[in-house]
């Protein structure tokens, strides 16, 4: 390892930290694991201890929800220190087998799920969709960037299918990348595999720039965040689907004919809310559905509780006997009498839906992506 890579103090501005503890105070996983992110801001100032600190299992507890950074009075990003420590472990090859397999699968097949590229478009096999040609003469308005989880997880596939239904209803001119689509690398970067993330960045930017489109719409907030904020050199703007759909409703291009007479609440995904300030569009869409009685979580918007699905947590189980945050969330939803917990992220969908089963409320409460809710009303 070269010295410059180890220079945590400068890289993360550690000396700027006043040890106020607002980061740990807001950290949702501190509720159920040993992670105390403030301590890492201090301990990693000692370069000689980095190796040893990176061996601590808590560094894998962070969901990269960004609450700590949002709360830091000094504008620091404590989570990045944890990611930096993960990188040290990655360089040593010391990662959990589940993480290793996910990363190797991304390198080999362009998705973390160990599934072949040839099955990437299976979710759309019954749909009539356009697959874009690179360097096409004609401009397509929207390029859809479909998350790996939407492509391969049978539960989440339904969300991608709902997106197609909604866009067709609104007459949007869109196209898909198809089998060449690859993982955005959001989880790759957060697991600390910087080199592989750079590959994702370079290859995806080149691929995306080869299409003649006006804008890119990502279905997952994780892809959206990465494409928009972490990629280098994308030529067209990136939107989250909630932005596009809100626009379609506003411009009257999308009509919602059917009624859904249910109590609906909305769980803000960290990568959409806290990290990208998209709070209003999802609510706007939900409340435009006739019949919906919308209720807010007590902890909503900036204060929304993380579902623990991001930051590579799909592949790392935390040692904790405490309730999962998703379960707390479902408990809260139950109390407010919600029949539907709407989400706008594949990871939130999985973690929250699983929690309804743990809590035994899967009969009376549904977890649905906003797109599914909307598709039902079309």
């Amino acid at each position, binding site marked *: 390892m070269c010295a410059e890579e180890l220079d945590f103090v400068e890289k993360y501005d550690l000396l700027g930290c006043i040890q106020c503890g607002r980061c740990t105070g807001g950290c949702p996983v501190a509720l159920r694991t040993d992670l105390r992110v403030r301590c890492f801001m201090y301990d990693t100032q000692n370069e000689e201890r980095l190796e040893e600190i990176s061996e601590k299992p808590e560094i894998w507890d962070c969901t990269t929800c960004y609450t700590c950074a949002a709360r830091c009075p000094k504008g620091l990003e404590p989570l990045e220190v944890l990611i930096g420590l993960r990188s040290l472990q990655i360089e040593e090859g010391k990662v959990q*087998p*589940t993480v290793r397999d*996910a990363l190797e699968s991304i390198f080999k097949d362009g998705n973390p*799920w160990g599934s072949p590229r040839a099955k990437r478009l299976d979710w759309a096999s019954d749909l009539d969709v356009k697959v874009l040609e690179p360097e096409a003469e004609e401009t397509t308005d929207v390029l859809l960037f479909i998350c790996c989880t939407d492509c391969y997880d*049978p*539960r989440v596939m339904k969300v991608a299918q709902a997106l197609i239904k909604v866009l067709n209803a609104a007459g949007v001119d869109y196209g898909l990348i198809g089998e060449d689509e690859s993982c955005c690398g959001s989880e790759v970067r957060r697991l600390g595999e910087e080199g592989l993330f750079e590959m994702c960045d370079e290859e995806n930017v080149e691929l995306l720039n080869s299409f003649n489109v006006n804008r890119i719409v990502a279905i997952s907030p994780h892809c959206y965040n990465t494409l928009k904020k972490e990629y280098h050199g994308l030529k067209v703007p990136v939107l989250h689907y909630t932005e596009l759909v809100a626009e379609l409703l506003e411009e009257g291009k999308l009509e919602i004919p059917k009624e859904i007479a249910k109590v609906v609440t909305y769980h803000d995904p960290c990568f959409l809310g806290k990290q990208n300030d998209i709070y209003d569009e999802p609510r706007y869409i939900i409340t435009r559905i006739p019949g919906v009685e919308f209720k807010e979580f007590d902890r909503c918007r900036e204060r929304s509780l993380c579902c623990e699905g991001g930051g590579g947590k*799909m592949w790392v*189980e935390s040692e904790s006997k405490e309730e999962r945050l998703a379960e707390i969330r479902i408990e809260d939803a139950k109390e407010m009498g919600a029949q539907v917990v709407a989400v706008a992220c594949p990871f939130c969908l999985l973690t929250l839906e699983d929690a309804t089963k743990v809590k035994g409320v899967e009969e009376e409460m549904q977890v649905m992506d906003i797109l599914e809710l909307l598709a039902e009303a079309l």
Partner: protein
Amino acid sequence: MKDIFVLIEHRRGEMRDVSVEMLCGAGKLGGTVVAVLLGKDVDAFADKAAGYADKVLYVNDAMFENYNSELYQKALSALIKEHGPGLVLMGNTAQGVDLAPALAVELGAPLVTDVTAVEMDGDKPKPTRTFYGGKLDAHLAMKDADLYILTIREATFQAEDPSKSGEIVKVDNPVSEDVAYRKFVEYVEPEVGDVDITQSTLLVGVGRGIREDKNMPVVEELAQAIGADLAASRAVVDAGWLPSDRQVGISGKTVKPKLYLAVGISGAFQHVTGMKGSEVIVAINKDPDAPIFGIADYGIVDDLFKVVPKLVEKIKELKGA
């Protein structure tokens, strides 16, 4: 047609099933079936083999008390040179695979391993085996030779009732000296109690369908009847009904047993990722649309609490028989 040699495989006082299967299969290929038995005081196996073979060549020597491929190779190569069979069959087992390739190289005899079907074209076998983890059958043409060697996958041939009474010929050990460069040390049983499900050959996976801790004996009995270990979905581990080292899936273990019997598991992608490589997958689930049926080989759509106890009964009956 030339003779067919069948190597009898035995270990720790037991003759392995594949031996009888091969003797029965060899009988159908035509030619004289010669069982070759190397061991120490295993007369009972010689007698048993004689029920299926035209002749038994029996070398009784302390050298063969435990399997050592180097000694087996020396003995077999001497016997083959002396008796001149046209075909040698061995089990495609940990023993056969450790031996056949070296013997084939030594004797210049074409070898095909892991054979799942074979026909004869005169003295020349035409074997079939699988490629790509069973996704394709490959039909092979062997090079012309005086001697062919095949290792046969277990259960390729059917074991039948004994119908022969071959002559048992005791042969002097053709190997004069023990080898020093490879020595048998000991057998070690797999650890019990501390189960590592990634090493299990048979697994019963239990899911949330089991509903309550107090129902666990239902699947425990099933596992016991089969001789399988218990694995679980995360739902079961989370509930604390099984320890976390039994969890199968993306955040648990990846397992590839010969049998994965999923009971009350829906087949969530996160679970399936960890067990889809299993050889035979069986699912018992009351929901006909449960995704687990999409990857299972066999399924029963019914209430597990009705089916599993019956299954335990039937398996016990079969095992008793």
